[in-house]
């Protein structure tokens, strides 16, 4: 039998430190004052400016127009992240359901067409997408931010693979039990996809949360700014004074990290199950 040795722990500890240290440094540094950071550089020790920095970041109005706070940006990011995740899950589940359980002409072709769009990242189609949204008058709206990115080949593909692994007899038993297509989907398929839904939710939430380019194109109104844009603009705006507000930039970066981390921590057991387990 393999005995766990000290070196095994050492490797793990080093790995963990390697991944965690930058975050710790960023957090610790954010608790110092900007002047302190400017003169002493990054810091690993606890500063005494924690409350002041975070209060300022969350509540002080900033931006060019001066009507956007950190809290507002957190909310915008959440709307984007959750809207993305939920919308993508609903759409891709329905698409996968149609592809797997219904026989219609060119079903396989449809799937491959959807699948091929995986090869086209957002950046490739960003101009036409922008044009469409602009023509529809959806610039500077939440729906304009969310809807164009909802169709998800990744999600559809994951759900298709999952549905294919569901035993055929389950569908047959449900048919004999008198469940129609809609009932089967709601009563049987959605509940047994729970873990898969959780996994996709995490992936898609983080994806939405981290969007930078699309929100930047779509919104000019600062009240729609997300955290990702905010971090940048804080530095740009406040750099004008004698010392850049490093502490606030760090604080905002930490804030931007918290929700995805929280979601992963909360859903992690389901997440791992969804991606690995096939208990049906």
């Amino acid at each position: 039998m393999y005995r766990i040795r000290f070196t095994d722990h050492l490797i793990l500890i080093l790995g963990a430190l390697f991944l965690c240290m930058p975050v710790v440094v960023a957090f610790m540094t954010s608790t110092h004052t900007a002047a302190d950071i400017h003169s002493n550089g990054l810091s690993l020790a606890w500063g005494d400016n924690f409350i002041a920095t975070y209060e300022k970041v969350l509540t002080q109005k900033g931006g060019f127009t001066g009507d956007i706070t950190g809290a507002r940006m957190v909310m915008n990011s959440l709307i984007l992240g959750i809207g993305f995740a939920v919308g993508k899950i609903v759409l891709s589940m329905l698409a996968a359901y149609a592809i797997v359980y219904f026989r219609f002409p060119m079903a396989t072709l449809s799937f491959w067409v959807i699948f091929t769009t995986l090869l086209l990242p957002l950046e490739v189609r960003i101009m036409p997408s922008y044009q469409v949204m602009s023509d529809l008058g959806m610039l500077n709206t939440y729906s304009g931010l969310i809807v164009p990115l909802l169709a998800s080949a990744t999600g559809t593909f994951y759900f298709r693979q999952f549905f294919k692994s569901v035993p055929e007899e389950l569908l047959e038993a449900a048919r004999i039990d008198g469940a129609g297509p809609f009932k089967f989907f709601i009563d049987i398929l959605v509940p047994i996809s729970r873990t898969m839904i959780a996994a996709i939710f995490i992936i898609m939430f983080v994806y939405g949360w981290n969007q930078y380019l699309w929100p930047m194109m779509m919104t000019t109104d600062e009240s729609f700014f997300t955290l990702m844009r905010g971090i940048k603009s804080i530095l740009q705006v406040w750099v004008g004074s004698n010392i850049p507000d490093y502490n606030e930039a760090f604080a905002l970066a930490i804030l931007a990290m918290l929700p995805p981390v929280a979601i992963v921590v909360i859903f992690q057991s389901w997440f791992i199950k969804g991606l690995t387990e096939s208990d049906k």
Partner: protein
Amino acid sequence: MAAIDISSVGKIYNGGVRAVSDINLDIKDGEFIVLVGPSGCGKSTLLRMVAGLEAISEGTVKIGDRVVNEVEPADRDIAMVFQNYALYPHMTVRQNLEYGLKNRKTPREEIDARVNEAARMLEITQYLDRKPRALSGGQRQRVAMGRAIVRKPAAFLFDEPLSNLDAKLRVSMRGEIKRLQRRLGTTSIYVTHDQLEAMTLADRLVVLNGGQIEQVGSPLDVYHTPASTFVAGFIGSPAMNLVKAELQGDKLAIGPSLISLNGYAPTSGAVTVGLRAEDLRTTSASDGMPFTVEYVEELGSQRLAHGLVGDQALTIALSGEAEITDRMQLTIDPSKLHFFDAGTGKRLEARALAKAAPTLAEPVA
């Protein structure tokens, strides 16, 4: 409760593969029919056509007085038990049992009454609030049967329900299914590839081969008068010995030995002869069939000796105490011989038996 009438039913899959052809079967109300045959013989396809899970390409299926060819599975008034149980994994046992009734808008009190009754009958009352994954294989199978029972359907359809259970559990569940079916009196069709299961459960056996019916009859009929070499080789354990032989007048030549038939010869010339392992006896006389033993299987109550007569393989069943030597002389009562056409494999009636035996390959009325 209803009779099921299957007439000239066939199944052709997309692409022209023919899985089942021209099946005629009259199933009486309350009868337990077992469809048995090797893998790919079309037995499951036939069952699934009755269930409505496969479209019927040819012929008609009637449940009661109603042709159900175009009726949805849910509206055929049948319940099915699957090999892998097909329980809904996210529902408790109670919810599993209720689901079909709820979809039919059965009143709440009625649902509770039926579920409780079925649970009591199957002794799963204490598991009603568990999820299926917390149950053992046998318990899951009971739940699957419970799901069928609560519906009070016209017919139960079983698709190899015991194949996923271990041997011991299979025997006890077999008994339970039989008892339950007797008690409820529900028409049942049961698919299996296990001939022992088929023999013990069936009121009538339907032996299928290559999508066609080889023989229909009570288990003992099928056992004692198999209609073809296929049935003879499939039903019974150990399988019936089938050897090439030649009829010379009233004598049967198997390899080097001649057996006197006392007037049982049905024809003359080359035939296939079937000999049940348990009908063969050892003898001390020197005019028997010389049998060379190759190896012995000990079953406790029986000893199975495998060996050769001439150059043809043969198995004999002897009692547990019987002595086995390397070379033995075998004899058999001529009335216990089964004759089959050497070409077609169809049964040839021995003359003396021809009068007494019922017509075969017809449903026993």
